[in-house]
């Protein structure tokens, strides 16, 4: 990572948590965890991300993880693409749905409301804005206003996280560490 404080500036209590994570998972602590534990009273976006990803919603956890992976792809964030592809893949119990969506959302074997929503999030992330017509197209595809709002919350969380992962230069670990992290995100969430 580009800032030394994010590698080695943590308080004693956080360093003890890292030691426990290494012991339990037998994997290195990933950079997203190091960021989350650095001065959480300043940044600490865990509760916001947790609510968006695990709070009550008509979208499944797998669909929201897929949205996170998709937004991360538009933001060109290798760490977040890998982390949230792994999480959605484990939740769905299959790879095809995730891989096909990231390869080409227009032809992927997913439900039309999810497809329309992903396209909207992609446009918002790429263009930094969307207009009412773009939202009307999603509502016409059968997505409820609350589902649009819930998807926008996922997009908010990952438009923050992706930027920081890229700007701080998160290291992308191998699949074993990513899968261990994904299982942790599914069992405990983001808090």
């Amino acid at each position, binding site marked *: 990572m580009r800032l030394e404080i994010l590698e080695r500036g943590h308080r004693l209590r956080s360093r003890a948590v890292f030691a426990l994570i290494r012991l339990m998972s037998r994997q290195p602590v990933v950079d997203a965890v190091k960021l989350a534990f*650095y001065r959480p009273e300043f940044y600490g976006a865990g509760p916001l991300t947790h609510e968006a990803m695990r709070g009550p919603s008509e979208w499944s956890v797998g669909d929201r993880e897929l949205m996170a992976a998709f937004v991360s792809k538009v933001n060109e964030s290798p760490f977040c693409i890998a982390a949230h592809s792994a999480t959605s893949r484990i939740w769905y119990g299959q790879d095809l749905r995730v891989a096909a969506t990231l390869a080409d959302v227009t032809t992927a074997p997913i439900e039309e409301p999810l497809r329309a929503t992903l396209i909207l999030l992609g446009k*918002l992330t790429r263009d930094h804005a969307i207009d009412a017509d773009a939202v009307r197209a999603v*509502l016409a595809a059968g997505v409820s206003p609350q589902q649009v709002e819930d998807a926008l919350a996922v997009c908010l969380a990952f438009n923050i996280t992706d930027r*920081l992962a890229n700007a701080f230069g998160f290291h992308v670990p191998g699949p074993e560490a990513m899968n261990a992290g994904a299982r942790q995100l599914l069992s405990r969430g983001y808090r």
Partner: protein
Amino acid sequence: MSDIRKLQRDLIARVLGRGGKAPPALRRAAFDNAGLDEPLRTLIDKVAHRAHRVTDEDIAEVRAAGLSEDQIFEVMVCAAVGQAHRQHTAALAALTEALGGR
């Protein structure tokens, strides 16, 4: 997800509030991506608009200009939160307009 708006407000209040080591005006400028001088202007604009293009040199220049690592951490967080917040606010306004027009 009624808690999202409160959690978002809380996050913004924290990064722009009293707990920071960088001056509040500098954090606000980074959040707004406006009114900054070089070399901070380049780093903050990259975080906001093309974070995948941030380089070691971008950060080294800001460090050489006198900011501490904690101050750099804070202004980069502010830039990311600020841009994501603007996008989210614009999208919610588009949703409201779309619903009003139906």
